């Protein structure tokens, strides 16, 4: 990780929200650049060398999903989506198009900062390529996933997973802290031909929780983002 201040581009048309984000992020050591429409946002993202983009889906000039697609044509930098509550489908489309995470308005600054940290750390880990062993503490339970040796340990006891369960867990581990949509999970685990069978995913997620969680109805590791996908707790 570099020592200089991380750069964030905020693409959002509502001035008050931009201002809150700027104030909040600046006070936590981020350098913030703002854009109030999609076109300007794309220019800012290309010229400011940002570490992360915060993108509002409801832009006046172009579809937020389109902005994600255009950004993804040349960069893999993390994108966090801001969306209104009624825009479920847009949100999922943006995530499927390559956005890394989302926040539903209204959100608190604490949530935004947490998501920022996760995304930036994920980038750092991928770039360092040091993520073959993943460890997680969840209310007294300790989970350790060794991707290199395909082993899962719970409180130092090996857990037996089926191949699909393991693949599912591995995808979530590689994206720890980030939301992974149903579609993405289905594609990675079962292949592109199965994206229309989300209930496969739910059945295996249930099995996985039964094996890993102390109380599957109150998961500590495998969180559900209802209507969107799943998220493995990161911290």
């Amino acid at each position: 990780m570099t020592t200089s201040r991380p750069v964030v581009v905020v693409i959002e048309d509502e001035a008050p929200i931009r201002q809150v984000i700027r104030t909040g992020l600046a006070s936590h050591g981020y350098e913030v650049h703002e854009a109030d429409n999609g076109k300007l946002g794309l220019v800012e993202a290309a010229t400011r060398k940002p570490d992360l983009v915060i993108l509002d889906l409801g832009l006046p000039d172009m579809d937020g999903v389109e902005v994600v697609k255009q950004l993804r044509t040349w960069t893999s930098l993390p994108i966090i989506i801001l969306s209104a509550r009624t825009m479920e489908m847009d949100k999922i489309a943006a995530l499927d198009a390559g956005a890394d995470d989302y926040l539903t308005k209204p959100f608190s600054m604490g949530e935004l900062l947490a998501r920022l940290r996760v995304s930036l750390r994920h980038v750092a880990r991928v770039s360092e390529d040091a993520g073959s062993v993943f460890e997680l503490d969840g209310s007294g339970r300790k989970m350790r996933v060794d991707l290199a040796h395909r082993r899962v340990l719970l409180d130092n006891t090996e857990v037996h997973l089926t191949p699909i369960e393991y693949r599912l867990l591995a995808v979530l581990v590689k994206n720890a802290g980030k939301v992974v949509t149903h579609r993405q999970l289905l594609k990675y685990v079962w292949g592109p031909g199965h994206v229309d069978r989300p209930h496969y995913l739910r059945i295996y997620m249930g099995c996985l929780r039964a094996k890993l969680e102390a109380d599957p109805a109150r998961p500590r590791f495998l969180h559900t983002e209802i209507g969107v996908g799943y998220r493995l707790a990161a911290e």
Partner: protein
Amino acid sequence: MSEDRPDPDALLARVQREEARRVRGRLKVFFGASAGVGKTYAMLSAAHEKRDEGVDVVIGIVETHRRADTEALLAGLEMLPARQVEYKGATLREFDLDAALARKPALIIVDELAHTNAQGSRHPKRWNDVEELLDAGIDVFTAVNVQHLESLKDAVAGITQVRIWETVPDTVFDSADEVELVDLPPDELIARLREGKVYMAAQAERAIQNFFRKGNLIALREMALRRTAERVEEQMRDYREHQGITEVWQAGERLLVCIGPGEMAAPLVRAGRRLANALHAEWIVAYVETPGLQRLPPEERDRVMEELRTAEQLGARTVTLSAPQMSTAILDYAHEQNITRIVLGKPRRSGWRRWLFGSVVDTLVREAGDIGMHLIGAASTPDAVRNNPMLARSRAYLGLQQHSADKKRWMGYVAGAVATAAASFVGWISGPTHELVNVVMIYLLGVMLVAMRFGRGPSIFTAALSVAVFDFAFIPPAFTFAVSDTRYVVTFAVMFLVGIVISNLTASLRTQARIAGYREKRAAALYEFSRVLAASHAESEVVEAAVKHIGDEFQGQCVLLFADAQGRVEYPKAPSQTGSLHGADLAVAQWVHDNGHPAGQGTDTLAGAEAVYLPLKGAEQTLAVLAILPINLRRLFLPEQQRLLETFLSQTGIALERIRLSASAQQAQIKVETESLRNSLLAGISHDLRTPLAAIIGAASTLDGDDARLDVDSRRELARNIHDEAQRMARLANNILDMARLDSGAVTLNREWYPLEEIVGGVLSRLQPRLEGRPVSISLPRDLPLLHLDAVLIEQLFVNLIENALKYTPTDSAIAVSASRDATEVTVTLADRGPGIPPGSEEALFDKFYRAKPEQTQSGVGLGLTICRAIVTAHGGRIWAENRAEGGAQFHFTLPIEPEPDMPPVDEMPPAGAEAP
């Protein structure tokens, strides 16, 4: 108050009449015995008086006949320009009705009430124009001579030998508010004529020779005076009734006038009217249509219908009776209607024929009992048109397509010949073994078969042919028409007569069967129509059914035209159905809609239009206009068809009104509900928005104005306050938005298969910050199936139920989520340990804006549970609440179990760790 007070119904009727009169214009008729008595002069003088009183008087049209003193009276009165109509090369001056309606004066002068309008005018007669003016609330002064009154035209023709063509229905005259008799002794009139005050000198002399003979003038004057006196008497009666004066009336007389197709019909109707008037009796004109009369040619039938219409205009009720026997039909009807007198024409049959066949009159006189009889003799009118009934009758009228009937008849004659040939053949091959009597029987069998199949004409032809062939082939000497034995002549005669009797009997049977068939068809059509209407729930369905059934029944194209909000009739917007009429004349339809009378072809109004336009009347106004273009116009105006059409129309009207009433009742209900909803929503929202806003603004302004005086803790406290209140507002806004979306039906369920556990887990993690410190127990059985649901909405359902529990129960009390299943559904229960639900409000809880404790400021708008119910209902489940026996409330909701989707392939492989990377 006296016992014999006036009948309330009669009083009501009079009040209504007066009410109608108030809106309607007043009609004053200047009534004279003949031309030249000074009606126009009197009328114009009265107009001047009115104008001097300040009344807005306009002259619509006046015929001064160049009389100088009359023309002088025109000065100083506003005059509407006459409409110029080109007719057969001449330019006619016609009264401009539309200009008068547009000008809308208080009083208008329209001379010559009996005038016939030029072709192409809206109405055929001027009195129609006057009626429309009165309907529009304009007072009218008009003038008419006694010889133009419909009921007197025969009497006038009898006296003066001049046939009067232009007549005014007596109803128009009788309904006038005022009649002023303009009287002039005959000698003075003749003197005026000679002085050239009435006609130009040359014309005058000829007039005196013909119409204006003194004898004529005296008779006409008597008639005018008598008619006026009749009116005065009626007024007197009306007055007495008005004042509650009662006297002993003779039992109410009811007159039945029976008319037939002959030229006697017109005098009978007029005589009936006079008699009815003299007796102050109600009168009915009846036409009995026997199977024989049904075969009349259309022209003659039309004449009868015309006469019935005239009778209606004269104030009679008309009825067409359909029966095989005239006398029985009349007697039955008379008894049924309590008729006291029957008016008939003198019998036409006379001498031996009357003795042999009897006559309707004789039968009636014999069997009428206490019903009085009036026989009216035929007065030979100077130019009565006699057409040849024999010629006309020879063309049997079958009602429907003339062409196919002709073809069928032609076939009948061929069949007759074939039948005769066949009978001859059978007779011939069995000839030696049979008596000739049997051969006759075979021929008669042929005659009967032809009669059954083809009717009277062909069967008579067959009878005649059979006699001829029988004679030729079987009667010695064979193969000649000569007859050796005179006894055979008797055989021929009897054979022919029997053939004719068979023909007649069979033919009338056929006719009756056909009539019965028509009737049954009509009844079936009506039944079917009313059944379809009763099942209709939308206006469009009614309209569709009406257009279809009326179109089918009257074999024509039709369309129902409705008026828009401004009352302008417009073409239907819905795509037209098959058989619907295109290109209806909207102007005609508009007139019908505004005036509520039929118009178009075959009627008195705008007869130039191609189709017939009929109003569809509701209880209060004209609902729509039916435009119908029948293939056979005459058929539409047959009385039984008219009645059928009226029934169709009234059925349609009733159905439309029923639907409109129920729709408007529903609308009113919805409006009231929406109104009260909006009020409680506004009250709720304004309270629930203001409270957090006040807190936020207060806290934020404190922070804003803080010059480092507040310590860190206080500032954090204020910030948290702002945060919490804002969260509250956000939840409120979400609820309102959700409700609006669910209410408007904008939500389509995005259903996928979920385990319940996952939803509950998602909800708990979403609500985690608010559930801090609450013991929450979850017990979900292992065997729960996957549920097909919209996860976002079901999550919202859980969130709302849990938030509800958080709101109403102590902060540290337990919340329990559990579920159970049976064969068809999963029941989820959320139980708390709070104060429970106020008894009796278990249902009301789920209503919009319901609050358990309205005075409590902390509660929301009361939408949370309403949203829950909407979500559960959308998923096909139920939701209900109850108190727990051990204290607290519990909410249950069910979700249906649907057949599960395909399961992923089994994936039981060796433990992952055993594999090599």
